[in-house]
């Protein structure tokens, strides 16, 4: 897909509109991306959906990634522990793509067990309704304002969020042993 024309101007426009909400960006990358402050996500999302120079009318996918690290990590990585949410958007009208990135702490206010929070975008793209449920279910992120935030793939009474890197599966579920 061709990239949006005149990239620096597009980014300047966003920065002018949202100032500090735009934390980092690279629109010339193979997969162009913008990092947005969590609390400003819905405003930026609505803007890139509706603005005629973006028209990101489709939300393809939401991904939650747990960048976890402690003394047992085998991977040779240097990141500070955090959660990243990746929103892959595309514009059918302009044949372009964009990724919004939101960085969250692994736990809200550093309290283990308190899920980090981000405002929902389910009122902007309906896709988000199920995708946010899945990220909540598997990665453990609280989507504030979601109309029906329940688990979607795991059982309702499942404990924990399996795609967290430090997740420990339970020994059994309702009397069924889990190997």
């Amino acid at each position, binding site marked *: *897909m061709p990239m949006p024309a005149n990239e620096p101007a597009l980014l300047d426009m966003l920065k002018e509109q949202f100032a500090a909400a735009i934390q980092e960006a690279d629109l010339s990358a*193979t*997969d162009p991306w913008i990092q947005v402050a969590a609390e400003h996500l819905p405003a930026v999302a609505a803007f890139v959906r509706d603005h005629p120079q973006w028209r990101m*009318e*489709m*939300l*393809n*996918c939401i*991904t939650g*990634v*747990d960048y976890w690290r402690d003394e047992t990590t*085998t*991977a*040779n*990585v240097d990141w500070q522990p955090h959660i990243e949410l*990746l929103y*892959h958007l595309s514009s*059918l009208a302009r*044949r372009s793509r964009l*990724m919004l990135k939101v960085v969250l702490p692994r736990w809200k206010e550093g309290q283990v067990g308190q899920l980090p929070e981000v405002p929902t975008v389910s009122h902007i*793209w*309906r*896709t988000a*309704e*199920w995708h946010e449920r899945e990220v909540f279910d*598997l990665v453990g992120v609280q989507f504030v304002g979601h109309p029906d935030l329940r*688990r*979607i*793939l*795991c*059982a309702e009474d499942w404990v924990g969020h*399996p*795609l967290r890197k430090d997740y420990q599966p339970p020994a059994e579920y309702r009397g069924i042993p889990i190997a």
Partner: protein
Amino acid sequence: MQPESVSATQIEYDVQTEQMLLSMGPQHPSTHGVLRLALRTDGEVVLAAMPHIGYLHRCAEKIGEKLTVRQFVPYTDRLDYLAAMNMNLGWALTVEKLLGIEVSEKTMHLRVLVCELDRIASHLVGTCALGLDLGSFTPFMWCFREREKILNLFEALCGARMLYNYVVPGGVMAEPPRGWLEQCRQFLDQFQPVIEDLHVVLTTNDVFIRRTAGIGVLSPQTAISYGCTGPVLRATGVCWDLRRHGEPIYTRMYDDYQFHIAAQTDGRYPQHGRQPPVPGSAVLGDSWHRFYVRLLEIGESAAVVRQAIDKYSRLKGAPSGPIPMRTKLPQAAAYLETEAPKGQLGFLIIGDGSAVPWRVRIRSPSFCNLSAVEEMCRGCLLADVPAIVGSLDIVLGEIDR
């Protein structure tokens, strides 16, 4: 109450019916796998439909974090097991995008060949299962007969009938055996009349039209907002197909191929006049159009396979093979969507420098297509639920992952 003072219409209005919660599935034959639909009904009218999924969840993304990218290929087979070649291809291309690999032209033609054959097989199931849901048994037998021939071809190619592990990062697992391309051509020659037969028994069948036309209408705006893709999106009149509109690593495979995108634009489908006409009762975005788009795509894919056979046999040399088993991934991410038979299949791979990905994400087309079912079923009749769910052509293996 004074009976004589009540008119006939008032009687109908005054009758109170009780709302009922009806559970359809998880093993209902017309839900295409272990899907449960909780339906709130008032008599025959569906007031709300809520899908419950996850019965087939096998932690595919978690498994992806434990295996090398080569080892994960068989797991992609088990996403949409009715179109495993296309699942393999999506994964292989995403790995190749991450590693910056380009496969040879000969390999690309072979990949196009197997993936379009696979698209035919998948659409045969999609169209005939919808017919079966609505009580039409004959086309089901015909479609499965033809699909069987494709599975035989794939068995000769790679030894497996459904879960191929054939298209792998770097290339393909094996060269086609001697005479295989000729067998493909023979299959296509005898297959062409079958498409015409399906148009007779389904497309223009009055009962089938009455059951599907005007049912489960989806507007293009709603479809896009729900992330609906593939035939579901194209049936709303949006001309969008990643084989033409995707990323270069994918579209270049199809650059030399002639085919039409099966979507109605300016009130007409491509090759208008050479296909059965759209019935007057059909509304753009309804179940009938979703069925029709798939049937047209079968014809288009057959034409692509023919071209692929010619292009492949004209080139010298052998197709390329897989990358080494423990190829290290860079500390980078790659996301790629391809046009699988059900819609846009996306893979995201995040590498951390080792051979095993840090994170694997699978964007399932059926997952998004199914989420629109709440919208489509609201206010429909109970008997129309199979006509709507069936026309979405979902596969639960890929929804639940």
